[in-house]
Every structure is written in structure tokens, then in C-alpha cells.
């Protein structure tokens, strides 16, 4: 009888790359269905066109370059679907086709395929078609949530993904199930959420200082600005922003692997999105902002490599250097823990 030999560990978790992709596809199903319900046949056409093109392109490239065909992992389909959801319903049918092709051919494979790409293929394609055919890609509108019913069905949805906030919540479930890492979406969301309040807060403080106000209570009262849910804030709650937070920024190859790095990345995404949103609009802002943040991922990652156990932090090193000056007889007493 021949046994199998492998290095330990001999038991592993069930999670696989394709199960992650499948769960993401599943999580995007509700919003896709609602967008088809809301926008009708054009939305269905866009989704089908993008997914089919992505899959065919993936198959073609892997065939031509004699690579293993990896359609089954669902990655290409996921890219296609995400791109479709970021298309305005008014777009001509060739647009998602070109976009999905670009996403797979350039965004994914020209950068080395699964796990190797640096920029999210969905965003690569989106930014490309947005700047190439800006007329067709201009969102029908820039929504912001008003009354409660907007959460269920956003009448002013500019892109398919914005059609319903509630329908995006499966993404939160993915975080809960750890298919998506929590650090990026949470820091991202908080940054977008509080950006305008912070600006208002800082302006208010500057204003008070200029006025020459001395009463500390008045300064303290400015804290309430954070509770004031102003108009801009609702942008942080619109579909595309939420879609970006849950599905685009969390794409693992394009975010840092270090824990600290992911926090910084989340905050960077939030800042970039909010700044663009501040001057322009939150729809383009989300997608351009995350795309730009992808560009600094590597930088963040390389600068936030963790110190391993027993390794000295900068503080400790300075301390050590000082200790070296002290005679060694004294030193042992000081360092020994027991």
C-alpha cells in the first residue's frame, strides 16, 4: 500500500480560493437581481455581456498561452459581474464587453494573473472605459440617500450597484464569516463617515480661535459636530461607496498583507474617496480613489512589516544602546525579568 507523504500540517481548513470567489458571487446576487428588476432588460444584458466576455477572455488567454484553464474558480465571472455592476444602465452593450475584456487581458493577465495583479482588474477596466468613453460611462445621477425607502430601492441610482443598499449587506456577512478581512472595510467606512465632520470640526475650531473665544466649554461643544449628520454624510451611505468598501477595497491582492498596513490602507482609501467626493462626486470618487490607493498598497506594505517576537522596537533599541554604556554588572540586574 502506498501512503501519501507530505510536510505538516496534515489537516487544513476547507476554505479555498474558489470558495471565496463563490461566496462573493453569491453575495452580489441580490444586488444584481434587484438591479435587473429595477432597470429591466438593459441591466440583464449588461451583466450577461460582462460576465460572458470575462469568462471567454479568460478561457482564450489561458488556451493561447497554454496555461491551465481556471474558469472554475469563478474569478473571471466575479470580475465580470463587478464590472457590470459598476456600469450605468444606459451604457451601450459593447461597453461592458470591452471593459470585461480589458479587465481580464490587461488588468489580470498582463500583471501575472491570480494574486499577482497590483491594481484591481475591475477598477483597471472601469477607469479605462470611464476615461475612454466618458459620455457613456457618466452615471445617470449622483444619488444620496434620503428617506428610508432609498435603502431598499435607490431611485436615483447612477450605476447598477447603487440600486439598493440593503442588497449589499451580504458583504457584511462575508466579513463576519471572514471571507473578507475586517480591517480594511471598517477603517475605510469610518474615514468616509467622519471625513466631513472632521472638516467641519476643524473649520469650527479655526473659526473660534480666530474669533478669540476663550471659553473651553464652547470648544468642547464643538465635539457635537461629530453627531451632526450633515447632508454630505449620506454620500458615505450610497450604494457605490458601500460597494467599494465591501467588495473593491477588500480585494486581497490589491491590499497590504500586514495588519497595520491594512488599517493605513483603509484610511487612505477613505481619505482619497472623500477628497474626491468633496470636490467632485462620490461615485467617481470611490472608484478613482480606491484605484489610486491600490498604487500605494505596495509602499504601505513594505513600510509596515511587523516586528516578530523578541525583536526590538525602535524604543527598545535606543534603550539598549544606552544600556551598553552602563557597566555590564549593573546591566544584568536591570534586564533580567525574574
Amino acid at each position, binding site marked *: 500500500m502506498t501512503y501519501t507523504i507530505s510536510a505538516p500540517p496534515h489537516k487544513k481548513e476547507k476554505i479555498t480560493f474558489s470558495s471565496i470567489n463563490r461566496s462573493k458571487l453569491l453575495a452580489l446576487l441580490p444586488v444584481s437581481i434587484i438591479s435587473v428588476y429595477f432597470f429591466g432588460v438593459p441591466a440583464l444584458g449588461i451583466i450577461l455581456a460582462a460576465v460572458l466576455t470575462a469568462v471567454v477572455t479568460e478561457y482564450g488567454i489561458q488556451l493561447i498561452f497554454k496555461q491551465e484553464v481556471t474558469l472554475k474558480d469563478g474569478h473571471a465571472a466575479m470580475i465580470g459581474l463587478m464590472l457590470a455592476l459598476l456600469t450605468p444602465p444606459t451604457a451601450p452593450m459593447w461597453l461592458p464587453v470591452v471593459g470585461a475584456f480589458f479587465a481580464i487581458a*490587461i488588468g489580470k493577465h*498582463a500583471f501575472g494573473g491570480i494574486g499577482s495583479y497590483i491594481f484591481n482588474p475591475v477598477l483597471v477596466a472601469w477607469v*479605462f472605459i470611464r*476615461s*475612454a*468613453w*466618458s459620455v457613456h460611462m457618466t452615471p445617470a445621477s449622483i444619488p444620496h440617500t434620503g428617506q428610508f425607502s432609498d435603502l431598499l430601492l435607490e431611485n436615483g441610482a447612477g450605476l447598477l450597484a447603487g440600486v439598493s443598499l440593503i442588497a449589499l449587506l451580504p458583504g457584511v456577512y462575508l466579513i463576519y464569516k471572514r471571507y473578507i478581512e475586517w480591517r480594511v472595510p471598517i477603517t475605510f467606512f469610518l474615514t468616509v463617515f467622519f471625513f466631513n465632520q472632521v472638516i467641519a470640526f476643524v473649520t469650527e475650531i479655526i473659526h473660534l480661535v480666530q474669533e478669540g473665544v476663550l471659553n473651553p466649554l464652547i470648544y468642547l461643544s464643538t465635539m457635537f459636530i461629530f453627531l451632526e449628520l450633515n447632508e454630505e454624510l449620506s454620500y458615505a451611505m450610497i450604494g457605490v461607496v458601500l460597494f467599494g468598501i465591501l467588495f473593491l477595497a477588500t480585494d486581497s491582492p490589491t491590499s497590504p498583507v500586514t495588519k497595520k498596513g491594512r488599517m493605513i490602507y483603509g484610511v487612505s482609501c477613505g481619505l482619497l474617496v472623500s477628497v474626491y467626493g468633496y470636490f467632485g462626486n462620490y461615485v467617481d470618487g470611490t472608484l478613482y480613489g480606491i484605484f489610486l490607493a491600490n498604487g500605494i498598497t505596495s509602499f504601505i506594505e513594505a513600510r509596515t512589516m511587523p516586528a516578530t517576537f523578541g525583536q526590538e522596537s525602535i524604543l527598545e533599541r535606543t534603550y539598549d544602546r544606552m544600556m551598553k554604556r552602563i557597566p555590564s554588572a549593573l546591566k544584568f540586574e536591570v534586564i533580567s525579568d525574574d
Partner: protein
Amino acid sequence: MDPLSEYIRGITRDNPIFGLVLGLCPTLAVTTSVENAIGMSAGTAFVLVFANIFVSALRKQIPSAVRLPIFIIIIATFVSIVDMIMEAYFPPMYAALGVFIPLIVVNCIIIGRAEAYANKNNVFYSFIDALGISTGFLLVLMLIGGIRELLGTGQIVTFGYTLVSLPLNPDVTTMILPPGAFLTIGTLMAIVNYQRAKKRAKGG
């Protein structure tokens, strides 16, 4: 060394873009259209030919301590001349090529050839080398310019003549913007590398 193969070498093996990878800035910056590409290559060719000839002719006289400054002066002179002539006699092209004519001065191709070739070879071969390199540069620039212009505007219009016109205008604005330049040259280089690797594996 025979002149013809020296000439061909500048187009193929020592192609300034795909072989030597020099002078990328003008290559990318001015290739929004074939017309600009031709203009830029013409300017570069003019400077390259004269610079190579002069450097080669003076190579025995140039003290090595100040070799680089002298090369630069020679090159800068011819660039200024191209600049003035183009501005005076070809104003539309001058408008399009703008700041890049003066930048021929620091175009790595010219300094590179002065150093690597003209400084070591005689005037005739330096002249041939300059022609070969210029031709290589021209062809690549036209290729990149052609791709970008065709995809970006649906047609190639050169000096008032419409050379190619697509029935369906793709109108890919991005191709004319800076990213289009990077994308085009990246794709072309990948294809060139792919072909080279294939050829090498087959033996050659």
C-alpha cells in the same frame, strides 16, 4: 563592418526603443499622432546625425576630462538650431512638439550614441549609425503614434492627408492621454519580448 548591416542594426538589434531602451520621454510624449512622431524623429535625426559626425570628427581632439560637457555643447547647439528653424519655418509642428524639441538635448539616445559609438568610430560609420538609429526611432515612433492616433480618433491624418480611416470610430480617448502611451509601448514590448524568446528557444 559593412555599412548596410550597420544601418540595419540600428533598426533591429540596436533599436533605440526596443533594443537600447533610450529616449523614452519623447517616444511617449509626442506619439499622440503620426504627424508628431515624424516631426520629432526628424528633429532627433537631424541632431543625431550632426552630433555623431561632429563628435566622431573631433573625437581625437576632445580631452576626456571634459568629454561630456563638450558633447553636450555640440548637441545643444544643433538642438537650438532645430528649435529655431522649426519654430520659424514649421510653426504648426512646432506648436505640437512644444517643449520636447529643446529636450532632444538630454535625449539619452544622442548622448548615448555619442559616447558609445561616435566616440569610437570614424565619421562615415558614425554617420551610418546615426541614420540607422534615426530610422529605427522613426519607425517605432510612427508605430506607436499610429496605434494611438487610430484608436484614439479613428483615423490617421498626416500633414493634411487622411492615411487610414476606420469605418467605426473607436474613439478611445485614453489612448491619446498619457496612459495610452504607456499601455501601447508596454504591449509592444511584451510582444517583442515574446517573439524574441520564441526565436531563441527555437535556436537562433
